[in-house]
């Protein structure tokens, strides 16, 4: 009989401080629901906001200095990459809560404690995805995020569309997770470990493994599973339906947070450990990136619903970011992170504007509903135009610089034709983004379905102003953010 001594290692709780804060806030917010009579109806929202800001503060306070390290038995990585993505995700959570505060005024179910606690717990999952150093933690984090979001997607209980979106997302999500897990199983089988650093080390020391079928299966299934989350063609089909059906504030959260976390996982799981395999996946990923941006853009061209249009455009953006994945250099990855950050701001902003245009029980999501908006609400129109310009990649917005970095790095790595295709795609995308601007400013307003701004709370004003400013600042002074992203990549474990 062998005796086991359990020696708990000293864990660095500072490394997970933001997550702890978020979970505690989530529970606190949940408790508020119990004492409904004692607390104000809007208290959960503001508590959640305070919690997310506190978490943001923790991320900044803890920061990242010195060499990358790991804690919790290698499960949690403490490096610049974690820091950067935690920062982005905390910003996303805070902005989403700000948007939701206003959205909750239209739809009562959006102001309950459950909503905010699920939002925060999804955030915890996202941050853990970005910081995970072990596939077990990565998977649990991914599921924490996904399960919270399945529920959030169906939060408009009165609308059939929302429930349907939840159903589709749930079934496909569970299906995709199974593939991802099978991939992980093969990684485990091939390398004998689930620890990302050990996997990388094993592959480096056993180059003959690269041709093993196990590793191929591992790559294929993992990329399918993660590709599902980043909505890479052909694993993208859930995206438009879910984005359209979900409550708009949740859609913004999904489009940015899930994508950021999933790309983080992509870099952590595939790009870093399986880098020696790169030459063998180049062609297929080339095709995937090309299809992703092309399909996304082309279908977005013919959409009439702005949420659906933005959903397809988010597929296209995933394609652009995949350029950085293909290019594979450190700077390209920095470009990916930079793009994710800009993307977070511009997309939450755009969905925030859409979320603003609704009154009790119904939303204005058809593009023709935007007619005359630019004149009726000049500031709102301006802000929306900034977001759309940025999405289209027109200078001086952050979207332009993001594309610029990604395309340049892809060019440096020799993907000339793919960059050409990406350029053509950008041009196509300008059409449908600008169509909204054109409708806002040049269409006469139809009187019968004139948009009325409901109550505008200070929260959404702050959120939109922050997002618009960030988009512009990142476009005009990109260096700081780019070097931030670069530093985070170069201290990747």
């Amino acid at each position, binding site marked *: 009989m062998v005796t086991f001594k359990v020696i708990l290692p000293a864990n660095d709780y500072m490394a997970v401080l933001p997550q702890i804060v978020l979970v505690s806030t989530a529970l606190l917010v949940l408790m508020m629901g119990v004492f409904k009579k004692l607390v104000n109806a809007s208290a959960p929202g503001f508590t959640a906001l305070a919690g997310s800001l506190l978490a943001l503060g923790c991320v900044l306070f803890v920061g990242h200095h010195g060499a990358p390290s790991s804690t919790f038995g290698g499960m949690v990585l403490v490096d610049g990459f974690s820091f950067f993505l935690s920062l982005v995700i905390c910003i996303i959570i805070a902005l989403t809560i700000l948007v939701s505060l206003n959205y909750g005024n239209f739809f009562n179910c959006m102001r309950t404690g459950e909503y905010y606690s699920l939002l925060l717990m999804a955030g915890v999952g996202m941050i853990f995805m970005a910081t995970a150093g072990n596939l077990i933690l990565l998977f649990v984090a991914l599921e924490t995020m996904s399960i919270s979001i399945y529920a959030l997607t169906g939060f408009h209980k009165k609308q059939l569309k929302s429930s349907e979106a939840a159903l589709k997302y749930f079934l496909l999500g569970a*299906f995709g997770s199974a*593939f991802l897990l099978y991939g992980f199983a093969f990684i485990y089988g091939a390398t004998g470990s689930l620890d990302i650093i050990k996997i990388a080390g094993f592959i480096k020391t056993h180059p003959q493994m690269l041709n093993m079928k196990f590793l191929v299966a591992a790559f294929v299934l993992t990329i399918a599973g993660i590709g599902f989350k980043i909505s890479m063609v*052909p694993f993208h*089909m*859930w995206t438009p339906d879910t984005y359209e059906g979900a409550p708009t504030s949740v859609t913004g959260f999904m489009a940015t947070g899930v994508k950021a976390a999933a790309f983080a996982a992509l870099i952590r799981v595939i790009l870093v450990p399986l880098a020696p395999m790169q030459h063998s996946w180049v062609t297929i990923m080339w095709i995937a990136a090309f299809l992703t941006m092309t399909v996304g853009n082309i279908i977005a*061209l013919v959409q009439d619903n702005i949420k659906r249009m933005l959903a397809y455009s988010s597929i296209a953006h995933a394609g652009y970011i995949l350029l950085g994945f293909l290019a594979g250099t450190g700077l390209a990855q920095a470009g990916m992170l930079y793009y994710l950050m800009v993307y977070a701001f511009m997309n939450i902003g755009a969905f925030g504007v859409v979320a603003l245009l609704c009154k009790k029980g119904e939303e204005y999501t058809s593009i023709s509903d935007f007619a005359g908006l630019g004149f009726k609400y000049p500031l709102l129109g301006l802000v929306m135009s900034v977001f759309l310009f940025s999405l289209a990649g027109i200078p001086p917005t952050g979207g332009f610089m993001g594309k610029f970095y990604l395309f340049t790095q892809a060019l440096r790595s020799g993907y000339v034709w793919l960059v050409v295709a990406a350029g053509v795609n950008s041009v196509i995308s300008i059409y449908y983004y600008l169509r909204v601007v054109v409708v806002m400013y040049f269409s006469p307003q139809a009187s019968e379905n004139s948009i009325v701004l409901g109550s505008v709370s200070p929260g959404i004003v702050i959120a939109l102003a922050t997002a618009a400013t960030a988009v512009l600042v990142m476009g005009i002074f*990109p260096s*700081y953010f780019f*070097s931030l992203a670069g530093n985070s990549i170069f201290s990747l474990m």
Partner: protein
Amino acid sequence: MKFDLVRLIPIFPLVGVLINGLLGRRIVEKNKSLVHWIACGAVGLSFLVTLGLFVKLLGLPADKRLYDFTWFTWISSGVFHVNIGYQIDPLSMFMCMFVTGVGFLIHVYSIGYMSHDESYFRFFTYLNLFMFSMINLILADNFLLMFLGWEGVGLCSYLLISFWFSDLANAVAGKKAFVTNRVGDFFFAVGMLVLLTHLGAHGVWSLKFNDVFSHAYLLPPHLVTIICLLFFLGCTAKSAQIPLYIWLPDAMAGPTPVSALIHAATMVTAGVYFVARCNVLYSMSPFAMHVVAVVGALTAFFAATIAVTQNDIKKVLAYSTVSQLGYMFLGLGVGAFAAGLFHVLTHSFFKALLFLCSGCVIHAMGGEQDMRNMGGLRKKMPITFASMLIGTLAIAGLPGFSGFFSKDEILWQAYSSPQGSHILWLIGLLAAVMTAFYMFRLIFMTFFNECRASEEVQHHIHEAPKTMTVPLMVLSVLSIFGGLLGVPASLGGMNRVEHFLHPVFGLGAGKILQAAGGPSVIHKAVAQTAAEPHSFALEYELMLLTTLLVFAAIFAAYVLYVKKRDVPGRIAEGNPSFYQLLLNKWYIDEIYETVFINPLRAFSIFLWKGIDVVVIDGLVNSTAAFFVKCGNVCKSTQSGYVQRYAVSFMVGVFGLIAYFMYVR
């Protein structure tokens, strides 16, 4: 006071822009005066900071007067970095001093001039934006930031020329200015790119002035000439030289303070500043220098001839600005960079003064600009008259006034410098004489004799308010005494301006080149600039000649426009063709119209109707239709059935596996 405070100089106007631009409408509703307090305060503070830095700079020994402040990295792309950085050296501070100073005075003047305008805050927002851009242009330590400022001032100029955009003529003038400037900007940008790529080929991926100049020896001579000429073409647009001067007279459509600030005192001197800033490059290319000198001299003469016949008070001043700018380029072209810059300084004083005075006149006359309908204003507007007379004396170059010293310095250099020649001097001299003539023609027609305006207008004529006259007085004082800064050695002065700028032009440039590439590339003009002692006799003779001729011209103007006022008309009738030629500005606009614009227009109509509508539009439309069709086809894959999505997922996985198993 630390040099790092230099960042405050552009920040103040920027803050002004933000406040007035974003909140202006509300501020005007609440308290109109707050708008101009903010705008003027911003520029005033910039001026104070500049003054402080200037004093500090003066406190340093001459060869230490260079400070480079890097604020933050602006663009970073591989090895190529561009900073938002400001360079403090004698040249930039020299420019910045009078730009902020004169700018401040004109801001104050605008309070009175624009007081009745509806878009009060918009005007001040533009003015502050202009100051911000101009300061960036001047203080930039690299070409790109300078280009940003260069574009910025162009934009502000456009916005301000067509400030009263509801009038079609103004909008057209703004467009003309903008388009002409774009032509120049294009050459500037091309020059910059040529410079960057060729220096980059030697491993110098930088657009920073210091880096570029200290590595300029790497460039082959013909390339330097090309770059200099490209840059100079850019300058001809901004500084209204032949062949791109045509926009400036039309730019007078804007409010008069704008004409004073942008189209006389500051923005149009940007080209002069740019050439001076690149003096190292120009010194390496004698040919480019010649071109600058010849173009400058011709412009000076040419514009003066046009000014003689103009009847619009602002047009006269506009052509005189063109002419004076020509002088400055003449100075630069003959290697007398300091003299050119000195003229920039004095010119900004007296030309701003003249414009502001003309603004007072126009203001008093209720918008009338034709001098034939003026006259006799001397008694009704004494302060304006005195100021304008001082300005006129200064521009005409009467001894003792500021214009005399700077203009004389340029003429002398044109005559004596190895780069100069007697012909250039002669052309310059003729231009100077004509300047005196047409300026006094303006004075006599406006302020003397009887008033030719209608009764109603006459009734309204009044002296301008304090906010307008005080800047006039300050500028008058500067116009008189500003010249003392650069009294040449021959008249017992110190020529302080030249000494102050010496580190940048003579000494600095020589040093940079000497350290870098040896003396072989230094042109003799630069090497010689450190003034050798020479006999003053010739200089005195030329000075005397100029002065006499100027007096003769003034007398001629007096005779023609006060005593025998029928003579000009008879001369005009006697030589109708020549008079018409001058009156119509040598038909330059018409020539451009036929030579460039009409063929271009015809060509573009062909492109539009022939190529664009049929070929391009057809292509574009069919492409668009194609993509929409693709979209509709692809859309149908998104059937809404979950299981089809799952099938697509599996097909994807299957594809991936198949690729890895069989293809690879």
